[in-house]
């Protein structure tokens, strides 16, 4: 189109306006629910009934301050953070070791083993959650952060190994030969050369693991009975059940629960999008 645009000033004016209109309408569709939540949190319930759309008048900050001053919210933020970091640490550490072997060593059964791990992509929690719950109960891991961390790490292996193996393969064999000639052990090469070189890939898989753990709901829901262990998603859901008639307070809680995820997204957007689109364009 652009090659002809010079001859058609009308189109040049109309098209961008139409384009912007469409995009802005979609933007409103995306933003409106969140805006409703943010503003609703500043209203009291009476205002919400009489004036659900407009600005709050007067602005009522107490819903937000109540949540922020209650210990529960911060405990849940801490639990979610701790579980996300521990999950990521284990997933990435264990996967990196395995991906290194899959990428750099030839041995019998390698492709078969790799296929087994890759097939794990098709088994999300929903399928395995019930027997997983029984196993965790047998091991005494219910009401224990490890009961969420270890299964999350196990279910994160597939994607992490696939991405890391792809990256490890792309590092030229000459580097490994040179390191070996200089007396480097396989672990030395892995630890001192491969991992530092793989920093971008490690960042990508870490971001994916953090987001996955942060948003996980099903597993912490069945593993944690003790409110002191609840993560944010479980906390939000339980809070809704507890204060079902206090809409404004729930909105404030939901909005505050969004903040960490959105803050993380604004920092790690590049890695997140990069990780999610890996491979999807190549098939």
């Amino acid at each position: 189109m652009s090659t002809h645009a010079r001859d058609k000033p009308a189109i040049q004016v109309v098209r961008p306006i139409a384009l912007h209109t469409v995009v802005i309408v979609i933007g409103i569709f995306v933003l409106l629910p969140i805006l409703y939540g943010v503003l609703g949190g500043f209203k009291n319930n009476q205002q919400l009934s009489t004036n659900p759309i407009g600005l709050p008048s007067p602005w009522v900050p107490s819903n937000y301050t109540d949540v922020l001053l209650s210990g529960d919210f911060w405990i849940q933020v801490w639990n979610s953070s701790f579980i996300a970091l521990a999950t990521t640490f284990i997933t990435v550490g264990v996967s990196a070791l395995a991906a290194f072997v899959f990428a750099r060593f030839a041995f019998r059964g390698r492709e078969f083993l790799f296929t087994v791990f890759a097939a794990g992509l098709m088994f999300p929690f929903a399928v395995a959650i019930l027997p997983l719950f029984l196993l965790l109960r047998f091991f005494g891991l219910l009401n224990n952060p490890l009961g969420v961390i270890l299964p999350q790490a196990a279910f994160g292996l597939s994607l992490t190994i696939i991405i890391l193996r792809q990256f490890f393969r792309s590092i030229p064999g000459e580097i490994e030969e040179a390191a070996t000639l200089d007396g480097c052990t396989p672990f030395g090469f892995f630890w001192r050369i491969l991992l530092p070189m793989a920093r971008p890939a490690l960042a990508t898989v870490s971001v994916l693991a953090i987001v996955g753990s942060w948003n996980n709901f099903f597993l912490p829901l069945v593993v944690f009975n003790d409110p002191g262990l609840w993560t944010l998603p479980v906390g939000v859901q339980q809070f809704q059940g507890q204060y079902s008639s206090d809409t404004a307070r729930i909105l404030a809680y939901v909005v505050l629960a969004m903040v960490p995820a959105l803050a993380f997204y604004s920092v790690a957007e590049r890695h997140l999008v990069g990780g999610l689109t890996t491979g999807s364009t190549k098939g």
Partner: protein
Amino acid sequence: MTIVLFILPALVLFMLLVLAPIALAAYSSFFKWNGFGLFPTNFIGLDNFTRLLEDEVFLGDLWRGLLLIIFSLVIQLPLALAIALLLNQKMRGRAFYRLLFFMPYVLSEVITAVLFTMILSPERGLANELLAFVGLESLESTFLSEPSTVMYSLMIVMTWKYFGFHMILYLAGRQSIPNELTEAAQIDGATPWRVFWHVTLPLLGPTIRITIFLSVIGTIQLFDLVYVLTGGGPVHASETMGVTMYEFGFKRFQVGYASAISVVMFLLSLVFAIGYQRFVMRRDTEGAITNMRAKR
């Protein structure tokens, strides 16, 4: 030696917490079991599965799953593709819109569901107010507590949450297509529609096939969003296999029966994944260009 040591942690974790649970689910699906102890004892053969075939809620789950898949393929994915192609044009604020549209995907299903419970609530809800505001009072509804509208409401929430994810994949796919190809077609006099239909769309094939795959697998296992939004109700009108499984496994302690549901979910995913890889995605290895030529 190194091989074993390096791979062992991953293998142990994977076998113990991914493969073993699936094997245990398969095993206990042949038993009547209330879930006490580690292993069931009351063997009943295929009874759980024959019961599933007569269970109207479960058959409804399958039907609703199919509806959601059709909705994704016919409305959600084309919409995401259209938006991706819009955002691929040169325009001011493009990076901002991309960031904004993808944002809902980062929020957890629970946050999304709780937020929309409020928005779709008959009193104090945003949705009805907006409909009244633009003069569409006739569309006002109780949305989530009305069996005839609950699935549409769910679809809208799913679109809000997931279209940005598919859009991002399409954008990445579109950006991997060299602009020379579309420009060449334009210079040859192709209309924008023909450029899209004969150049862009075939070259996006691999990405489209991946998004269809992710959409279908995701729908088969849908739980969080539905459970928090509606709990599967009213009267099972929005229930999914995941919710039914949760009800029987964790609320009614019919662990054998719930395991049978898990097994069906697993088999459906597996059969779909294998069939899809075999018949649909295999062509992607041949490369998109040859693919396009073969189609002509």
